[in-house]
């Protein structure tokens, strides 16, 4: 039983890190309608940014500044945000499908840069020996994992409440107005380009932060961590959970990543080894099935977006409802 609990702590760390990434995507797609298909690129920039700042000094590498983890984490997030700014300035005037293709290309480009810029990223071999923050203060590694889980949950919690506050603010209403109808938003005197850029940069920085947390947890980073399939996984989590709702986004991570890993466990249990290579495809089928079923049965995701736009309006509606005598 203890083993299962220890594993669950490990599982939840990854879930929380992915949840942060999905919340970043939710801000971009769920609230603002920006189709970012290069999620993994910003995650990679955050991860490498952190790794370069905290990593040990090596003769063959440009990086290795041995900075404290918090500095590395912030640096990674800022680097990802800056990348979001550059990418956003270049692409945000594109409409949805064009933006998707452009960002998809950018995501792959970033991965290829990581693969080829040996002096900065260590190339295909990656960056090794990255310090895990405060690891030596714990006698047992599983106690460390528990502490790390608490840390990432706190960070995810702060991001969650900040985003919830932001999307319910007037700024959040503009995001949704832009998502629904750019022309209408512009006619009201709003500047959609600027607002979209803000959402894109903020979302990218949040994805970068998730990358930094992954590096701190694993202590290693290499280009194979940033294959395009991760972008697909993050999108699947958001769609299954319910885009436009942060609680949905988090639930989606739990469900999708849970199925992704648990199916591996059960396949390992029931299928004899000779057939496991075929059984591996079952996982891909399962995940596809979950997405299709969600789209069919719950087109808005497990927890869809809430109807009400402002809490103020909701309160008024409730009061009006109370005043009305029961029919």
């Amino acid at each position, binding site marked *: 039983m203890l*083993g*299962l609990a*220890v*594993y669950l702590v*490990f*599982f939840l760390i*990854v879930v929380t890190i992915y949840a942060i990434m999905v919340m970043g995507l939710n801000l971009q797609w769920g609230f603002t309608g920006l189709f970012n298909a290069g999620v993994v690129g910003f995650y990679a920039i955050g991860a490498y940014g952190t790794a370069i700042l905290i990593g040990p000094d090596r003769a063959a590498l440009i990086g290795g500044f041995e900075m404290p983890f918090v500095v590395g984490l912030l640096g990674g997030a800022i680097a990802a945000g800056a990348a979001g700014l550059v990418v956003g300035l270049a692409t945000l005037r594109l409409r949805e499908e064009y933006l998707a293709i452009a960002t998809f290309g950018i995501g792959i480009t970033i991965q*290829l840069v990581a*693969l*080829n810029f*040996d002096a900065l990223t*260590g*190339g*295909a*071999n*990656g960056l*090794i*020996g990255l310090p895990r923050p405060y690891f030596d203060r714990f006698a047992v*590694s*599983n106690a*460390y994992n528990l502490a790390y889980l608490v840390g990432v949950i706190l960070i995810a919690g702060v991001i969650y409440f900040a985003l919830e506050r932001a999307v319910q603010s007037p700024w959040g209403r503009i995001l949704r107005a832009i998502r629904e109808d750019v022309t209408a938003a512009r006619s009201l005197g709003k500047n959609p380009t600027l607002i979209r850029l803000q959402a894109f940069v903020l979302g990218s920085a949040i994805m970068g932060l998730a990358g930094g947390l992954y590096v701190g*947890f*694993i*202590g*290693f980073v*290499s*280009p*194979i*961590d940033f*294959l395009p*399939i*991760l972008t697909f996984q993050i999108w699947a989590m958001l769609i299954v959970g319910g885009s436009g709702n942060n609680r949905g986004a988090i639930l989606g991570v739990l469900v999708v990543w849970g199925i*992704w*890993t648990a199916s*591996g*466990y059960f*396949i*390992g*249990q*029931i*299928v*004899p*080894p*000779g057939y*496991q*290579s075929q*059984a*591996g*495809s079952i*996982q*891909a089928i399962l995940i596809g099935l979950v997405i299709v079923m969600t789209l069919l049965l719950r087109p808005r995701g497990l927890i869809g977006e809430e109807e009400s736009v402002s809490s103020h309006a909701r309160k008024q509606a409730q009061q009006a409802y109370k005043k009305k005598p029961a029919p």
Partner: protein
Amino acid sequence: MKLKRMKLAIAAPLVAGGLMMVAAPAMAQDARDCQIPIGALASLSGSMAAIGGAIGESGQLAIDHMNAAGGLLGCDAVYRLRDDQGQPSVGVDAAKSLVEIEGVEVILGAIQSGITMPVLTSVSVPEGVVQISCCSSAPSFTELAVEGGTNGFWFRTLPTVRPQGHVMAALARERNYVRTAVIYVNSDYGLSMANAFAEGIKVGGGEVTAMIPYNQEQASYRAEVTQALRDDPDSLFLVAFPADGATALREWLSLGGPQNLLLSNALRASEFVDAVGAKFLTTAVGLDNAQVAGPSVDAFNASWQEKFGEPPAGPGLHTMYDAAAVALLATQAAGTYDGTAIRDMVRQITGPGGEVVNPGVEGFKRAHEILAAGARITYVGATGPISFDENGDVTGPYLVWGVDESGALTELDTWDIDRVNVLMGDAE
């Protein structure tokens, strides 16, 4: 009704799987009532799926041999193979669940260095679990071990590419090539091989005119080839896999590149020779890991042939068997299933000084007898003698291959471990 049918559809394979699990130990002649799980990670799906399945089965073969030879510590060894899907996050999760839920003290694998490394740093080393890889060749593992980042829990049965690069440089010297261009696949394998070769060339006083990486599965490599030809090299070292390698080499030849070719181990394939044309390859020379001949290699090859009806051809099969065999024998010798105890026993059962035991049921039976008598064994595996250095690396023998006019692959020369060690000693 629909729901019922769905339930049935889910239940049927579950029940069938359950029956198989019950039936398997019952079929064994001397079923033991306890089980020791041995963990393994391989890419059964994803980009390495083509080789991952057979590698997984090679591990199973070693476990079967051990069980047939009398089990492991009086129990049945059970193989817990998990798919990493070619994705580090999936591999790390699978490794953690193997360790915590299934209670494994040994993880065999993974295949790609980019997955093996995070498993090592975030699961194996912190939890004190021995990790033995069949296939990860990146030099960063050696670097990490030197820095003390592995606590000795890391081993690999695949010879590292550094000596291979140096031997290749020696071959270039033998042939009086003084200006060599290098085109290499941009992966941890290609990069390390190219770097080791350049290091070896420098020691010998030659010159590398260009180091050009290429990305896999492109339609053309004209840009890379043009760049490699720029400084007028007299020879080419090509580190590639067959399909891309043939594309690049055809372009090299059509642009007037010299036929003084040095080829990496993965190009020792008839599909490569056919795609390029044998007449262009008669002056080419290649290097590959040699299966040293001998009873231990024959024993493995024979038992593979017996089980699968074909000879063991493909990367990682011999090394995976040895990884599993080393883990099993070290566990048996340690007398307890514990990562630290197994780690400390690995060099005891492979180093010289004990009685030699070979792969296969007979070999493991003999190992049981010797260990029971309190004496030492020296496991000589499917890849020949294994000797782990302080970083968990092994050095292997190599063979030099060429192509004759008919397009057949020929063996030109062999480099045994002693000859490689002398060369590497000179390089230091």
